[in-house]
């Protein structure tokens, strides 16, 4: 069997304040797999994302795209891992959208021509061609969210990690984003409360609660298990509840 894209073994993390945010998380994600990471507020989802990117020094073993994560490999690991943070205003830090999308490729040391090609391709993939000279401040929330995704796509990462990608989007913008995610072949970790999104995009779901994996299996089954979801502070996705 091919090496998993992402592998976590007994990952633990404790914040300075003392609360243990991750209490032994173990799972692996195969190449090309799309996994939804769900769980109530404070379950440790965002903490886990930061740990995978090497921003938090977690205990345990994390392997990303074949690299074991530690202090000295964190930078290499991030080349293979594209994270889209929850608030696109954090993600889009350059004055112009085009410069922002080019930021990753430029720091990767790519040739200017390659940077240009990748920037154009990434903006095209998210339907924002022609937005190069726009200021992020003047984009709608949906456009910001898609631009944020483009900044990461331009780096052509092996794994995409998205934190609440549909937060603050209206139904049409949300639909568009879902179609976009479905069209990508990258390994994907989608964190969030939007269970309908995860049902649409991900084949597998992992339920995290109080820093531990509470359930792991096919999204279509887990997200139809009302009793399981309710016991972890979640509820059935609307598309499922409507049919019942």
């Amino acid at each position, binding site marked *: 069997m091919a090496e998993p894209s992402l592998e976590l073994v007994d990952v633990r993390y404790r914040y300075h304040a003392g609360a243990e945010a991750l209490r032994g998380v173990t799972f692996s994600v195969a190449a090309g797999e799309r996994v939804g990471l769900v769980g109530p507020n404070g379950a440790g989802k965002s903490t886990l994302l930061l740990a995978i990117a090497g921003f938090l020094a977690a205990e345990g073993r994390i392997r990303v795209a074949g690299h074991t994560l530690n202090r000295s490999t964190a930078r290499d690991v*991030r080349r293979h891992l594209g994270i889209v943070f929850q608030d696109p205003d954090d993600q889009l*830090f350059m*004055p112009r959208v085009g410069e922002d999308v080019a930021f990753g490729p430029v*720091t990767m040391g790519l040739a200017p021509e390659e940077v240009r090609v990748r920037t154009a391709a990434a903006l095209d993939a998210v339907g924002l061609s022609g937005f190069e000279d726009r200021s992020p401040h003047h984009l709608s929330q949906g456009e910001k969210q898609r631009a944020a995704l483009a900044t*990461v796509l331009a780096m052509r990462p092996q794994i995409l990690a998205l934190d609440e990608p549909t937060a603050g989007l209206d139904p049409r913008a949300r639909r568009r984003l879902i179609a976009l995610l479905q069209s990508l072949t990258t390994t994907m970790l989608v964190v969030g409360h939007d269970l309908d999104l995860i049902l649409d995009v991900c084949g597998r779901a992992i339920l995290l609660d109080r820093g531990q994996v509470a359930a792991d299996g096919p999204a279509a089954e887990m997200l139809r298990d009302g009793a399981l979801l309710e016991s972890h502070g979640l509820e059935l996705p609307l598309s499922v509840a409507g049919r019942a």
Partner: protein
Amino acid sequence: MHHMMLDQFAAQQTPVRRLDPAAKTVAAIVFILAAVLVRKDHLLPFTLLAAALAVYHAVGKVPLLYTLKRMLMVSPFALAIVVLFPFLEPGRVVWTLQLGPWAASVTDAGLLRAGHLGCTFALCAVTTLLLLATTPFQEVLSALARLRVPRAFVVQLAFLYRYLWVLLDELMRMRRARAARDGGLGPWSLRFRSHAGVVGVLFLRTYDRAERIYWAMAARGFDGRLPAPPTQRMTSKDAVFLCGVAALAAATLTLDRLAYG
């Protein structure tokens, strides 16, 4: 939320818009230096500079109201000094302000100084406003980088420009949330404390945001070095423009030094 942007007219296609931003930046610096170096309290040198600004203003199709509004926004500090000056400078007393037991005298020399200061300030402010009104801010930034202004400073400005509005939006939302609950009737001390609270929370949020932005940058490979500025070359038009501005500055200062020496 959309705020009035500094460079909202900068996208207009006009002859001054098409000039190299680095040339415009240098021209603005030369112009400001000329305005500051005028020594005599005489209107002619100032008029010369003001006329040049008026031409640029017209060619750049900057609405007059835009400039006046921005002038009003940047003026308070300078105005306070201009108003105080007539009272501070020693000279022949022309008018005395009687405030009960206190008296303050306006002197002729003070009035002249205040007028001079006001002219200098107005010229410098309008020059800066016009540069920003006819050049998209990003281009001013890359011009500064090309002019070898330290990278850290340029990047600081870029972040300021990017996040100032985000921060103002946040402040506006917090003040609105507070206003929605206080009814404006609370005791003075409580209102003061809540103001302090807003500032404190804003500081913490800004701190958190800075950390998240850093993560977003590091996640995309940021290692402390920033991308190099784009390369661009000045054309003959830019050279002509720069020479014109330099000649005007030289003429102004010569007039100031010689004709009224």
